């Protein structure tokens, strides 16, 4: 299935939920990420149940402070 993740075309195997995509994309601290799916911000409680479809545009938006004091969610 082809998705657009943070603006990049990304191919993933099989069906995925948002939670599974977060894992697949190596997001280590999903609590530090907001997810936008096709222009709408998802509720955190929907990460588990929301299945992704071919062509979906997904954006991971990260909490960012002022330069230190919070570790970013991925490497």
């Amino acid at each position, binding site marked *: 299935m082809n998705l657009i993740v943070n603006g990049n075309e990304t191919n993933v195997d099989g069906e995925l939920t948002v939670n599974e995509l977060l894992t697949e994309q190596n997001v280590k601290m999903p609590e530090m990420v907001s997810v936008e799916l096709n222009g709408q911000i998802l509720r955190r409680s929907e990460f588990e149940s929301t299945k992704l479809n071919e062509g979906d545009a997904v954006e991971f938006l990260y909490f960012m*402070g002022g330069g230190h004091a919070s570790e970013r969610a991925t490497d």
Partner: protein
Amino acid sequence: MPLSEQQIERYSRHIILEQVGGAGQEKLLSSKVLIVGAGGLGAPAGLYLAAAGVGTIGLVDADSVDLTNLQRQIIHHTSDLGVEKVASARNKMQAINPEVTVETYHIKATADNIRKIIPGYDFVIDGTDNFPAKFLINDACFFERIPFSHAGILRFEGQLITVLPRETACYRCIFHSAPPAGAVPTCSQAGVLGVLAGVIGSLQATEAMKYLLDIGDLVTNALLTYNALTLEFRKVRLNRNPDCPLCGENPQITELTDEEQTICDLNDSKH
């Protein structure tokens, strides 16, 4: 008030811009911008807005200049170590442009004091370094209906959004609330490329000036992200979130309160 000859000379590079002109410069001179956080982001914003002749600039910061600040907070000099950041910043801004009034607030912004400070300002720049302050500024600007620029920087990346409260997507439309307790196991120092603060803080000043002059398009309903390593800017389109706890359809936040610091104690942190 008509511009003096000296002002016409000082601001000549603005005045010759068709979109600014003498009228625009007069508008800037009678405008008021509040900068919360006189650190990495606030430094370039304060310097450029003072140079531009924004008539009144407020600075809110409870900290004093520390050696670790000097790598990126270019408004503070080595000779300012130990000096209150608001005083240090005011000195540089007035050295650049003595006709700018700089109001200083040597306090930590809280729900109690912020609502007394921001009314009367035309635009607010969030140059703070921690999430409770960022939510506080978002909420205070919502209740007081004052447009503001939010920004964050980390390592080699930065982000920016301008919010016109009740009209365009707010910080809580994207980030509902601070991350849950325990989300971040350690309060490790992630670091930041110094110049990143200059890039993003300058963009915040740009947004303030565009708003004051009513020119161009603001970064509203979009999060601008910047990656210094790839030198890529992206605009992630956003909509107002009907679920937003502040500006959504069923708001849970109906009065200004301090967001609890759930990540780690940032009391000792420097901007």
